[in-house]
């Protein structure tokens, strides 16, 4: 076959394709649920311009700084144009003051001030929380890796965790295997009912990271009538096993606490009796403790499903300084219309109110969704209603007396998820961060939080 003929056929094919591209409707042809699409010639030939459009312009503008009454006010004004700013209720520059007081005095007062980091799948495996923990513990002291369930649910990168005895998991979220327990869930929004003796072993993964070592262990549980006993085993400095028993007969929410002479890398907790285990606090030295509490697939509306009194009793045993609620990502795809946004925000408002009611001393921070993309005509684009969702959330959260921090803005705003993906910072789904991305976001969030806490003092 002559090459000229091949070239001619090739040319005919390209010409036909060009005609198809020119005459095919730009918005595609919808047949049933499927839309057939063809690119325009401009799309094919101008990809550099498309790329330029997708590039995110980082907001670097800063607002003029007026004369401010205090350093805190001045700081808030300075931060207004910053992508890592917080939206505070009534723009109160001293919003984090109570938290600052607690954190700065924790070490001296031998307190373990807790930061509960609730979130959706973005924080699973202790992602983001671990970076905030490191940052804050470096500043205010403290150690350990926070609260863990008695039986492993999902592995974490910080702690290796095994348990025997198979206690029954109870939670208001999860698949059909998870038992609903009429509000008896506790501060981890899930609990484990004892049916037989349980033995849980916790070992820190990174032994070089001495700050993770455990020196205080606290078991939070809701006892049903009848005895419940627990034994903690650990190896002391000389390498010999030590153990200490506690028992409780009274029903209700209680805690058992073990203070060890030295920090240890591994402990084993044996629990026997009847009751629901809410969590095990694995802390180091006094200071700040950060708990990672992932709630996969949730949009942050489960707190009102927890028994109010039980939750309040549990929080009272934990010395909570800050509650972080990092949600919204699972709802964004469905919040296209104002009505649905209003409904979601109303629900979030109720959750904040409930948490404030159960833990009045705690400061509440809502961390909004990251930038999220959907595929449109072969390209990834930010959900068109993304900014409206965030705007509604900011108003609601502030109106209910909580602060708002925006991952979306911290990432770079519209279209930033695609850019993060190109840099290996997010997954192919354009929703979840990669490990590297989560670390980066954890650092940004931790740094911003610390800056605001420190600048909030009177």
């Amino acid at each position, binding site marked *: *076959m*002559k*090459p*000229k*003929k*091949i*070239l001619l*056929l*090739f*040319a*005919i*094919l*390209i010409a*036909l*394709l060009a005609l*198809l591209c020119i005459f095919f409707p730009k918005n595609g042809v919808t047949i049933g649920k*499927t839309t*057939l*699409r*063809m*690119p325009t*010639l*401009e799309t*094919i*030939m*101008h*990809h*550099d311009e498309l*790329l330029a459009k997708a590039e995110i312009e980082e907001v670097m503008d800063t607002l003029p700084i007026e004369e401010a009454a205090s350093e805190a006010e001045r700081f808030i004004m300075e931060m207004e144009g910053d992508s890592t700013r917080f939206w505070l209720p009534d723009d109160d520059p001293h919003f984090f003051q109570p938290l600052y007081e607690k954190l700065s005095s924790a070490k001296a007062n031998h307190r373990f001030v807790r930061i509960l980091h609730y979130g959706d*799948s973005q924080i*699973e*495996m202790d992602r983001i929380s671990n970076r905030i923990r490191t940052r804050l513990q470096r500043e205010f002291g403290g150690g350990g890796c926070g609260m863990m369930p008695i039986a492993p*649910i*999902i*592995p974490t990168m910080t702690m290796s965790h095994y348990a025997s005895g198979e206690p029954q998991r109870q939670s208001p*979220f*999860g*698949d*059909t*295997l*998870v038992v609903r327990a009429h509000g008896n869930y506790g501060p981890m929004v899930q609990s484990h009912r004892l049916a037989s003796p349980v033995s849980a072993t916790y070992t820190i993964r990174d032994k070089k990271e001495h700050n993770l070592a455990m020196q205080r262990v606290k078991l939070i549980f809701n006892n049903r009538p009848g005895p419940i006993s627990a034994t903690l085993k650990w190896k002391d400095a000389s390498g010999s096993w030590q153990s200490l028993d506690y028992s409780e007969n009274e029903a209700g929410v209680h805690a058992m606490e073990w203070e060890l002479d030295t920090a240890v890398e591994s402990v084993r907790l044996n629990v026997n009796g009847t009751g629901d285990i809410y969590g095990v606090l694995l802390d180091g030295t006094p200071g700040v403790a950060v708990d990672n509490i992932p709630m*996969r*697939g949730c949009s942050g509306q489960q707190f009102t499903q927890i028994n109010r009194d039980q939750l309040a009793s549990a929080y009272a045993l934990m010395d909570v300084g800050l509650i972080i609620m990092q949600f919204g990502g*699972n709802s964004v*795809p469905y919040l296209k219309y104002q009505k649905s946004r209003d409904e979601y925000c109303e629900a979030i408002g109720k959750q904040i109110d409930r948490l404030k009611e159960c833990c009045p001393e705690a400061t509440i921070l809502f961390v909004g969704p990251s930038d999220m993309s*959907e*595929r449109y*005509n*072969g390209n990834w684009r930010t959900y068109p209603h993304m900014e409206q969702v965030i705007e509604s959330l900011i108003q609601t959260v502030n109106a209910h007396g909580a602060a708002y921090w925006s991952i979306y803005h911290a990432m770079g705003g519209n279209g930033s998820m695609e850019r993060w993906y190109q840099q*290996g910072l997010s*997954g*192919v*789904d354009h*929703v*979840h961060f*990669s*490990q590297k991305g989560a670390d980066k976001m954890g650092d940004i969030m931790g740094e911003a939080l610390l800056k605001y806490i420190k600048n909030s003092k009177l």
Partner: protein
Amino acid sequence: MFLHYLKQLFAFDSSHPLLFTQFDFWAFFFIVFAVFCLIVGRQKGPFTKGHRLLRNTYLFLVSVLFYYKTSGWFVLLLFFSTLSGWIIGILLDKEQSESRRKAKIWMALGVIINLAVLFFFKYAYFFTDIFNTITNSHYSIAIKIILPVGISFFTFQNISYIVDVYKRKITHVENVLDFAFYTTFFPQLVAGPIIRADQFVPQLYKPFFLSRRQFGIAVFWILNGLLKKIILSDYLAVSFIDRVFDNPLLYTPFENCAALFVYSLQVYADFSGYTDIAIGVAMLMGFYLPKNFNSPYKATNPAGFWKRWHISLSNWLKDYLYIPLGGNRSASWPSYVILGGILIIIALMAKNLYATLVVSAVITLLIAVYILFPKHRKEFNTNVNNMDTMLLGGLWHGASFNFITWGGLNGLGILIYKWWKKIAPAGRIIAVTLTAGLTWVLHIVMPCPLLNMLNFTTIVIFIAYTLLNITQLIVQHWKQDFNIQKTSASIIWNTLLTFTFISFTRLFFRSGSNLDPAEANEVAWRTASQMVNQIGSSWNLQQIPQIVSHYSAVFILFAIGMIIHWLPEHFKRRYRLWFAQMPATFLVIISLIAIFIMRQFVTADVQPFIYFQF
């Protein structure tokens, strides 16, 4: 707009390499082919040296441009590799007649140069990581090393040329431009197949010829490759596989397991799709590239799989690694050094008492077998050479321990199969029963996801094997010459078992793919262990129908892909020929329809997430 586009098309832009699946490549190829027509069309009369040089030089320059578009100034590395290979080929060939020893030195130098290039660009981070882990040091590489595209292919191609000249299988290529064309021919430059000098060099001296039927076949391979790549590979990857491998813990055990099987099809569609397009494009210019895949998932055992998968690499490894190590005749000192070295490095890196004990036990066992069974030494050596080949073959695919593990598991599969073939039926029954019993006891004593997986797999094998043997015994009662191994049931079982085995070894392959070399080891192991953790956890069977229904497009495509894959070869050949002989107008129309369909998959919405919480 058009001129601007042309300018863009030929300028280097790291974010827009020339990919077969994008319009840019076909626009590029159209222009290249138009000039090629002018060059070839002018050739009247006998095919002279001038004609040959003009065509080959043109294609060489086009290939360089193609590589520049893909890799920028790494094109200089390609020049260096090509030039050094050509010079060494000449020097080596000249020494052949005078001194075999000197020729050997030149050959060794050529191999070392290519391996050094490969090691520097591909394995620098890997070895630094090993060194740091073993010595608890924190050395880092001062410069950022970027892996040049196709380096594994063109260095291997050069090595094969140098060794073949040394072995006098071929004589050196006289003209540097001819040689440069051989090493850089653009359709195969980026992802193979690895073309051997003895297969390709003779084509350099032949005039252009393409029959009408060959033209049709070329179009078939191109469309076949594009459909495989865009529909099967890219769609399945984006809609399902990549997201599971990104975050295995977000997905149920069933989704993790399904991702492994779907990945098996996807990686085949991706790689073989690319090769199909390369074969078709080369054929349009009158060049023939070797077949690289032969329906690998039809294999009934791991050894058979490797005769059907990435054939050009398997052959390369056989000829330039396995046989030089001693093949199935003997072993050389490098045979033991490679195996022992890898085992010791694994033990040192694991920094775990159990790992050290296991590796020490394996090494002791190997030494004991070698000393105590001198009659089986030949077989022992063959197995060592086999294992070395698979381990290094694994490492060729990527610089992380996941790839070595993947290669090792495949090697182990081949060794077990070879051993299985030799033992009597009664021995097989005992072996299967003992293995199933052992894994059952282990998973009771030390419950963990890995042992749960192993226990389930061995129990299934035990049940299937028992059923096959019972059938054999019953039918044999009436029909004495009955052999269950030759029945369809047995072939289907063996095929499925091999496919499952290969899919599970891919757990390590995929986890180590597409990673930043600087952190490949860590990320790859984490992903692999998370997947094992999920697959070996308890399954909620009630979720499976929901998941399948949610990802229906993915599972339907997977089923269609596997059915087409398993179609008999003679049937495939028939429809290939039927397609090739269609009138040219039909070929254009079919191509148009195929492109339209492919475009729909490119723009299709991605499956939204569903959350089946742990």
